[in-house]
């Protein structure tokens, strides 16, 4: 306890120059062992990289495994385990693999491993099936060349491959892990908790929900940009505890910092918050499928089927006020359902202006001069300040006469109610979306594609917005390989959605990480925590 007391005294006395100098001297002598202690709000569970298609886990695995492609600090696609690739014809892709790459168990990385990974990721028990087309044919031309035959052109084939990690065929066969671990497996073998990747780190020990220790991979093919000798990851679910752990110096990096604690983290001489826009776009959606809204006092018709009513609600929301009051400045209002970074044409769009008077007029013209009542569903532990955004919306809509009954619940209950298994039981909802492929087609289909009762067509189009022209455009976009033509069609699709006010896009929320000042790390908008760009000074 005394030793700890002393180090903390030194760390704390940043105000006293002499002691601070001594402290930095002491820190400087300990340069041989640089440990990064990292705390995240969620847990890292099974270590099979095809089990769960979720950013945090995939980001963690990205320290250990590598894909054929990678994304750099600005999210641009760069070569990974494939040194280069070419389009032989619109239906044939050829990938030239990097030579001299070894898995951490010493096995060579070859074309056979790529073909094996392609089969494994398409298996029924995989959660990453969308990474490659189910009917593509993968062939090893030689040890370091792979050819992929498609049945229809796909310009964004490799967009998500930075998180489709290459696995070792021999290792998987020896471990009995040729199929991905799935939630329904009653007896997952020990391989679910082992890793064997080509990446810059290896996992030394893993206790799910408690602690995971990463060590640098001495045999990595690349040149390390980090100076770490160890990374210790601990999940800390409670916000207060996570912030306290950072302030007390028990961890070096935390994700996320609650927005209300950012000033506190910045006020401490030893810590600071890193903020930046996240790719996730928060939006509101309307039930446009049912002929009558169950939660509304309007009987016999559905007011949300009228685009002008939807536009009225849009114009009643003061997005700048939400940014200033609710998000404390940490949000980027957007005009589309996709982040500004992910579609170059988004700069040509603007939001419908905030104008409560115009909104009232639109409502009156639509036949609702006194407004109406509707129920709203909102998660309260999924997105940054999600419940507060909904509460702000409720009070803003009240000003134009629309009385909203808010039902905010934990994500487990919320998603059970509003997604397909719950029968899309919502009339007005808040949802966040990040297209895994970084591409608009994903948004057009998932959030705005016409869907049936079971969700086929547009599984996350909870309100069932439907426009056949837009669906036709989406079908063309997916196979168009000419970038300029493709972007023009995407612009056309977004124009339709904006004109009809299919949804109300709100904002990109912000990432907020907290770190000790001696830590350097790259914060990408996709919120992956990548140790290979981290330094502890």
């Amino acid at each position, binding site marked *: *306890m005394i*030793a*700890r*007391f002393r180090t*903390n*005294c030194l*760390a704390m006395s940043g105000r006293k120059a002499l002691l601070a100098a001594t402290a930095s001297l002491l820190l400087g002598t300990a340069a041989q062992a640089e440990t990064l202690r990292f705390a995240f709000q969620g*847990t890292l*569970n*099974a270590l099979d990289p095809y089990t*769960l*298609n979720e950013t945090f886990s995939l980001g963690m695995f990205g320290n250990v495994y590598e894909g054929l492609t990678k994304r750099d600090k600005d999210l641009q696609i760069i070569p990974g385990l494939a040194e280069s690739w070419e389009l032989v014809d619109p239906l044939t892709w050829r990938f030239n693999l990097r030579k001299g790459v070894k898995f951490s168990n010493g096995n060579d990385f070859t074309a056979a491993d790529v073909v094996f990974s392609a089969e494994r990721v398409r298996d029924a028990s995989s*959660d*990453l*099936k*969308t990474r490659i087309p189910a009917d593509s044919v993968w062939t090893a031309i030689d040890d370091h060349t792979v050819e992929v035959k498609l049945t229809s052109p796909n310009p964004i084939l490799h967009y998500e491959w930075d998180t489709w990690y290459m696995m070792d065929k021999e290792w998987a066969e020896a471990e009995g892990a040729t199929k991905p671990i799935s*939630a*329904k*497996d*009653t007896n*997952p073998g020990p391989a*679910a*908790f082992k890793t064997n990747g080509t990446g810059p780190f290896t996992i030394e020990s893993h*206790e*799910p*929900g*408690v*602690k995971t220790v990463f060590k640098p991979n001495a045999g990595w093919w690349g040149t390390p940009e980090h100076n770490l000798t160890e990374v210790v990851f*601990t*999940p*800390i*679910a*409670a916000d*207060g*505890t996570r912030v*306290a*752990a950072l302030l*007390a110096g*028990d961890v070096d990096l935390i994700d996320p910092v609650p927005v209300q604690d950012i000033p506190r983290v910045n006020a401490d001489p030893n810590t600071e918050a890193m903020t930046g826009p996240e790719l996730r776009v928060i939006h509101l959606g309307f039930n446009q499928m049912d002929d009558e809204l169950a939660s509304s006092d309007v009987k016999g018709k559905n007011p949300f089927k009228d685009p002008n009513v939807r536009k009225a609600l849009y114009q009643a929301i003061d997005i700048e006020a939400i940014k200033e009051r609710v998000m404390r400045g940490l949000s980027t209002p957007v005009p589309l359902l996709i982040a500004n970074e992910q579609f170059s044409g988004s700069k040509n769009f603007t939001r419908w202006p905030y104008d409560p008077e115009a909104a009232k007029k639109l409502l009156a013209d639509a036949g609702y001069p006194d407004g109406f009542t509707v129920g709203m569903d909102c998660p309260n*532990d999924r997105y940054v300040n999600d419940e507060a955004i909904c509460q702000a919306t409720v009070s803003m809509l009240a000003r134009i006469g629309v009385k909203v009954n808010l039902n905010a619940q*934990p994500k*487990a*209950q*919320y*998603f*059970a109610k509003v*997604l*397909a*298994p*719950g029968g899309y039981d919502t009339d007005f909802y808040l949802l966040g*979306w*990040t297209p*895994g492929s970084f591409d608009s087609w*994903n948004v057009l289909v*998932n959030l705005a594609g016409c869907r049936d009762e*079971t*969700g*086929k067509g547009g*599984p*996350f189009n909870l309100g069932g917005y439907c426009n056949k022209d837009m669906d036709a455009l989406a079908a063309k976009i997916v196979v168009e390989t000419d970038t300029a033509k493709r972007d023009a069609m995407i612009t056309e699709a977004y124009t339709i959605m904006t004109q009809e006010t299919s949804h109300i896009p709100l904002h990109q929320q912000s990432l907020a990480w907290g770190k000790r000042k001696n830590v350097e790390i790259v914060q990408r908008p996709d919120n992956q925590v990548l140790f290979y760009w981290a330094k502890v000074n």
Partner: protein
Amino acid sequence: MLAFAIRRLVQAIGVMLVVALISFIMFRFVGDPVNQLVGVDTSPEDRAALREALGLNDPVLLQFGRFILRAAQLDFGISYQFKQPVAALIASRLPATLELSLVSAFFALAVGVPMGVFTGLYPRSWASRAFLAISLIGVSLPTFLIGILLIFLVSVNLGWLPSFGRGAVVDIGFGWTTGLLTTSGLQSLILPSITLGLFQMTLIMRLVRGEMLEVLRTDYIKFARARGLSRRAINFGHALKNTLVPVITITGLQVGSIIAFAIITETVFQWPGMGLMFLQAVQSVDIPIMAAYLLLIAFLFVTINFIVDLLYVAVDPRIRLGGARG
């Protein structure tokens, strides 16, 4: 006696079954586990297939029956989130919770009893009033608030003790990991134990105080004084000894609630025990873990009550007679 024990045992099994059934019915309202198990891009067909494979479409009673049949063979299934057998997961988290609970109970006794004796002997001194005031905080502040306050005071501002976790642990065999053998492990225990034990400490202090005040007024203490025994012998040899019977009963009963209420303390301190695992399971709708944990806690309480009942019978013949009649 045997008949009484058997009857109690049957009742205990009934209680466990009811707890299991109630928790199973509650699981209908905690949300959809499938949504926590797959990524956002997973198709509705795959989700439906997963739900079917997990048996979530079956009627509650069928799911319940299946669970009870397996649980009777100590098989609690596989955790949805961790993909490991629940029994093994609980076994690996049990040492952390038990160590924390026992150290808390020890703290509550070691501090609560002397404070109770002191306040009983010197009810008018300023120190007694201070102790009582502190104990009021112990009973009135919620556990999570005490925990957060301690973290900010002791860990963040003073920097004396770790703010979270269990420190370094040593495996001493049989899968039992202990933090009692390392410096960081012991340091990590201090704040959570105080947080968890504060309420019990307060309870014991007030109990001992009340009993002491009572006992000190009795005749045999007066006679002991008249005999010229030393104050020490009277206070500790005679008075305290007579106050301890209720204290032991209460402490025994409280051990169960310490383990059960460790959930909050474990969450605040990210203490890797069963309680934290249970809370993570609630958030991610990990039904196998929730079911097993609730059953385990029910078992704990049932066992403690069973033992206490048997002890009462041994001590108090009136209950024995009543049991023989009914």
